[in-house]
């Protein structure tokens, strides 16, 4: 597992995300991300949690976490404390 905190990732659909925090739960890596504009100069409103995984070809990929219970759990631990 790669530590991706404070990195910027680009996905194959062109979207870019700043990794704000990362957690491993039951062997899976979850990323708290904030979308970044194309120019990589500004943060967008979009904040979400992604699951890191290998796709069938073995390439690293991310997917949205859909399970509400898991999202609540991850948000509790991933969101920066105010």
């Amino acid at each position, binding site marked *: *597992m790669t*530590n*991706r*905190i*404070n*990195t*910027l*990732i*680009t*996905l*194959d659909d062109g*979207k870019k995300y*700043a*990794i*704000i*925090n*990362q*957690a*491993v*739960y*039951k062997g899976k*890596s979850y990323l*708290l991300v*904030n979308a*970044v504009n194309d120019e*990589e*100069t*500004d*943060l967008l*409103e*979009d*904040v*979400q*949690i992604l*699951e890191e*995984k290998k*796709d*069938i*070809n073995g*390439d*690293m*990929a*991310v*997917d*949205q976490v*859909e*399970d*509400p*219970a*898991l*999202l*609540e*759990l991850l*948000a509790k*631990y*991933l*969101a*920066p*404390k*105010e």
Partner: protein
Amino acid sequence: MNITDLEELLKKIENQNAINLEVEKDIKKYIQNMKAAEEKSTEIFSAPIETPVTSEADLNHTEIIKEEPSVDDFINGLVLSDPVVFPDENLSAIAVPIIEESKVEEKPSAYTGGIIDDAIRTLINPNASSDGFENAVNILSTATLPETKYNEVMEKATLASHLTADVRTKIRTGLKKESPIIGSEENESYEFLVPKKIIGSKALEENLLTKIGNTIKTIPARLEAWIEKKKEAKKLKKEAEANIAIPEDKDILNFDYQQIMMLEKTRYSKNGQDDEESLLHGITMSARKKDVIVAQMDNMQDKNAAYLKCVGFLKKHPDEYEFVKFNNQNISTEVSSITGVEKANEGMYGLVSKNLINAINDIYGMPIQPSNEFEFGGKSK
């Protein structure tokens, strides 16, 4: 020749007295230089290696890993030196969907991103080599793909005007969609099969780090809003699926021609070349009101009668569709008067297919492949 050899040689020279003193002197000097160099070399390699300085933070970090602290100990604010690791015992009550990877791999034609994407690119490239094109068609007509990728292939195959009807049919009938069988809920688990690949990764620039720091307080609220939005979307989708209205007269679907014409005109004014597409858009919009899926018949021999090959299916259950008659003659007449059916060409089929696939996908999230299972005037088998 090393020092020992030279000394041995020098001894022999001295004993045999076979060389003059100048040469002997040179050899002695050479040996001395070699010895000095060797000593210096030994000094360098035997010097103590500097112990790397370990910062206090590093030491603490090491301790954290070894001691496995509680969850709260890991929450250190924005910037963490290492990813948080949740101790399972604290979270064991939370149900996490189990992804059975083995099932994914066992699929005979599971989506293999690069190959499929390459095949799509080749398929829609009118200048592709004949071998490459044939290979792409073979790949796509035998693949089993995730829903989104399946839809992409169907759409692009129908829109590429250089494709022959035979090629389209081969892909349309051969391409299969994967069954969403993994995970706790079908639609959720399906998403796991189409993750977005990470194609680049680099350290955040200083300016973005600063901006994150400045907006860090807003992140919990924004994250919460995103989660609520996802929950709401899921709830609405379930409600929509549970409340499918049944048309009063399911034997004959009388579409709202006025609405169709209005939609058609609106779209026509935006794009004069989109007239055939707009008609189907109108039909599907009208069909949506009646909760009927509009699909194409499998047999489309008569190009000029493309519209007449549309049929409607009433969704009774997730896996059961009842055929409903489609009062298409009137629609055909209306179309003729505006767009001119005589202009129909192969490209039009693509537009028709695209619209139907999109419409069905919009309504139910799953396109129906044209199939001989449906008989005109009968019921689905």
